[in-house]
C-alpha cells in the first residue's frame, strides 16, 4: 500500500540539510514507527504536532539545532516562535513573589509565619462569632480552672494565671470622690428606705427557712435547699424594688444558673509525653463557671481607676500549674458570657455565687484550716470575674493580640447563704501570652472584702442580729450605674 504523502502547497521544494528527496510533514505520519526516508518525520514526543499552514521563509535558518531532522522545516512552515508585537513594558512593582520563610518546615521562622497567618486570620474575621470560632478552633489539652476549689492558697495561683492584683476592701464610691459636698455624697444613701429593703430581705429569709415546710435535704444538697432559693428571691425582689432608682436595672437581664466560659493562654511549657514531645507550647486554661445568678446590662459600668494604674504586684509562681493541683483535659474551647453575641445586654453588672456544700465553713473549721475560708471566697471572686469580664471583652472584638482600649468592670457577691463577700473587678488587659505580656505594664485589679454575716440566727419566726451594713453594700452594688444615667 502506498503511504500517504502530502504535496506541500505552494513554493518550490527546498533542499534539506540531509539531501533527501521526499518531503513528508510530520503531521501526516501515523504510528510511532520511524518512517525511513522521511525527513519531515519527528518522533511524537519531540515536537507538538501542528497542521502545516502556508509556508514562510524560516526566520532563523541556521539557529534551530533540533534533534529531529527537518525540524526547522516545521518552523519554517510559518509558525511564529517569537512574538513580533511591539514590546510591552514590564509591570510596575517586584517581578518575583516575596521571599518569606517556609510554611511547613520544622523551624522557628516557619512557626512564626504560621502564627502570624493565624493572627491575621483572626484580625480580619468578618464577625465576632467568626473571630471566636477561629480563636478556639485548635483543641489541645488544657488546665480546667474551677473558681470554687478546695485547693490550698488557690487565690494566689489564680491571680498569677490571670495577672490580677488583689486590693483588700472595696474602692471608694465615685460620687463621693467627685462631689465632695456632704449633701451630694449622702444623697444616694439617704433616700433609701432601708426599712423596706430590710423587710424584703427578712421576708425572703423567713419564707425559705421558717415558713415553708421542706423535707430534710439530701446529702450534700444543703445549699440548694435553703440558701439558693433565698438568694434568688432576695436578689430578684431587691432588683425589682430598686428599678425606679436605677434605670439600668430596668433594662437589665437577670439570668438564673447561667454559664460563663473563657479560654486563654498564659506562659509556656515543654510538651512531656506523646507524639508532640519536646515542642514548646503555650499553657492553656479554661474556666467553666456556673454562677447562681447574674445581672447583664446594655451599658458598661464606669471605670474605677485609669487603665494603666498600678496598685500592687502580681504573684509570680515558678511551678507548673499541676502542682496546685490542677488537671488537664481536652474539650471545646468556649467563650461565653451567659448570652450570645447578638444579645443587647452584653456587658456585665453583678454576679451572685453560692458556695457549694463541700466548701462550707464548718468543714474547714473541723479540718483546722480557718485561713483557707477566705481563700475560697477570694479565688471564686477573682476567677469568676476574670472569666466574665474577659469574655465580655472578647464579645466586643478584643483578644490577646488586640488588647482592650477601655477597662471592663464587673461586680460579684460570693455567699454561702449567711456570709457575704463583695468583689469588684477591673479588666485592664487581655494580653497574657508570652509574646504579648513581655511589654505589657497593665494588670487587672480585683477589690474584695472579707465575708461578713448578714444575720446571726433565724429562730421562731424572726431574724436575730440582722446586719444592715451588708444589706447596704448589696444595695449599693445594685445601684451602681454609668454616670450618664
Amino acid at each position, binding site marked *: 500500500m502506498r503511504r500517504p504523502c502530502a504535496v506541500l502547497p505552494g513554493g518550490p521544494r527546498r533542499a534539506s540539510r540531509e539531501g533527501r528527496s521526499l518531503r513528508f510533514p510530520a503531521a501526516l505520519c501515523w504510528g510511532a514507527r520511524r518512517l525511513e526516508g522521511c525527513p519531515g518525520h519527528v518522533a511524537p514526543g519531540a515536537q507538538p504536532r501542528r497542521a502545516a499552514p502556508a509556508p514562510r521563509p524560516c526566520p532563523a535558518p541556521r539557529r534551530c539545532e533540533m534533534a529531529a531532522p527537518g525540524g526547522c522545516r516545521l518552523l519554517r512552515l510559518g509558525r511564529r516562535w517569537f512574538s513580533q508585537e511591539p514590546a510591552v513594558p514590564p509591570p510596575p512593582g517586584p517581578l518575583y513573589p516575596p521571599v518569606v520563610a517556609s510554611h511547613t518546615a520544622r523551624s522557628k521562622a516557619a512557626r512564626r509565619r504560621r502564627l502570624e497567618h493565624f493572627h491575621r486570620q483572626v484580625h480580619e474575621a468578618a464577625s465576632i462569632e467568626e473571630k471566636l470560632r477561629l480563636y478556639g478552633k485548635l483543641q489541645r489539652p488544657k488546665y480546667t480552672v474551677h473558681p470554687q476549689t*478546695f485547693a*490550698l*492558697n488557690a487565690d494566689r495561683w489564680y491571680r498569677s494565671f490571670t495577672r490580677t492584683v488583689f486590693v483588700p476592701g472595696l474602692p471608694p464610691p465615685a460620687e463621693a470622690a467627685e462631689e465632695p459636698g456632704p449633701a451630694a455624697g449622702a444623697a444616694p444613701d439617704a433616700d433609701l428606705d432601708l426599712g423596706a429593703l430590710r423587710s424584703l430581705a427578712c421576708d425572703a429569709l423567713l419564707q425559705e427557712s421558717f415558713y415553708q415546710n421542706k423535707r430534710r435535704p439530701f446529702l450534700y444538697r444543703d445549699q440548694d435547699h435553703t440558701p439558693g432559693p433565698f438568694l434568688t428571691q432576695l436578689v430578684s425582689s431587691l432588683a425589682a424594688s430598686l428599678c425606679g432608682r436605677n434605670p439600668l436595672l430596668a433594662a437589665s437581664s437577670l439570668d438564673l444558673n447561667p454559664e460563663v466560659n473563657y479560654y486563654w493562654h498564659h506562659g509556656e511549657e515543654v510538651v512531656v509525653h506523646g507524639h508532640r514531645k519536646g515542642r514548646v507550647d503555650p499553657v492553656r486554661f479554661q474556666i467553666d463557671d456556673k454562677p447562681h445568678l447574674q445581672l447583664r446590662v446594655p451599658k458598661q459600668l464606669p471605670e474605677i481607676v485609669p487603665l494603666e494604674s498600678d496598685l500592687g504586684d502580681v504573684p509570680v*509562681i*515558678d*511551678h*507548673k500549674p499541676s*502542682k496546685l*493541683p490542677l488537671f488537664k483535659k481536652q474539650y471545646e474551647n468556649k467563650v461565653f458570657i451567659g448570652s450570645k453575641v447578638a444579645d443587647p445586654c452584653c456587658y456585665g453588672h453583678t454576679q451572685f455565687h453560692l458556695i457549694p456544700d463541700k466548701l462550707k465553713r464548718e468543714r474547714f473549721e473541723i*479540718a*483546722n*484550716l480557718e*485561713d*483557707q475560708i477566705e481563700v475560697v471566697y477570694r479565688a471564686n471572686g477573682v476567677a469568676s470575674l476574670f472569666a466574665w469580664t474577659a469574655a465580655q471583652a472578647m464579645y466586643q472584638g478584643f483578644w490577646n493580640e488586640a488588647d482592650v482600649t477601655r477597662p471592663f468592670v464587673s461586680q460579684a457577691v460570693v455567699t454561702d447563704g449567711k456570709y457575704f463577700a463583695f468583689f469588684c473587678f477591673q479588666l485592664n488587659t487581655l494580653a497574657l501570652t508570652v509574646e504579648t505580656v513581655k511589654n505589657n505594664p497593665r494588670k487587672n485589679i480585683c477589690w474584695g472584702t472579707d465575708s461578713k454575716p448578714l444575720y446571726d440566727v433565724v429562730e421562731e419566726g424572726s431574724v436575730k442580729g440582722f446586719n444592715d451594713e451588708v444589706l447596704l453594700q448589696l444595695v449599693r452594688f445594685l445601684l451602681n450605674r454609668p454616670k450618664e444615667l
Partner: protein
Amino acid sequence: MLAVRPGVPQPEDTVQFRVSMEMTKVDIKNYLEKIYNVPVAAVRTRIQYGANNKKNHKNQRVKKPDYKVAYVQLGKGQTFQFPNLFPEKEQDEEARSFDDFRKKYLEKEQQIQKGDPRRGGVPDWFGL
C-alpha cells in the same frame, strides 16, 4: 513512711513521702499530726508502678516493686525544703596539701606519657 527529695520541683509547702501501699490519706495525716506534731493541711497520694521490662541472666522479667507516693501540704504557713544530705566537706591542711601533691604527681605522669614537647606530638618510634 520515708521523706524523699522530689524529682520535680514542688511548691514550698509540699513534702514528698514514700509510704506503704496500704496507707491511706487519712492514715498519713493522722500519723504526721499525732506522732510528729506536724500540721497537715492536705494529702494527695498516687501509686507508682514499678516497671517489668528488665530481664535477668535467665531471660526472666524482673519487676521493680510498686510504691505509693504521698504529697503532703503543710498547714499554718509552714514550708519545707529537702536538705542537701551530701554537702561539700571542709578539707583540713593535711588533706589539702596531700591533694595538691597528688595532683602534681598525676600531672607529671601525664607529661611523661605525652613525650618530649620539642617533638611537637610526634611519637618516639618515628625517626631514622
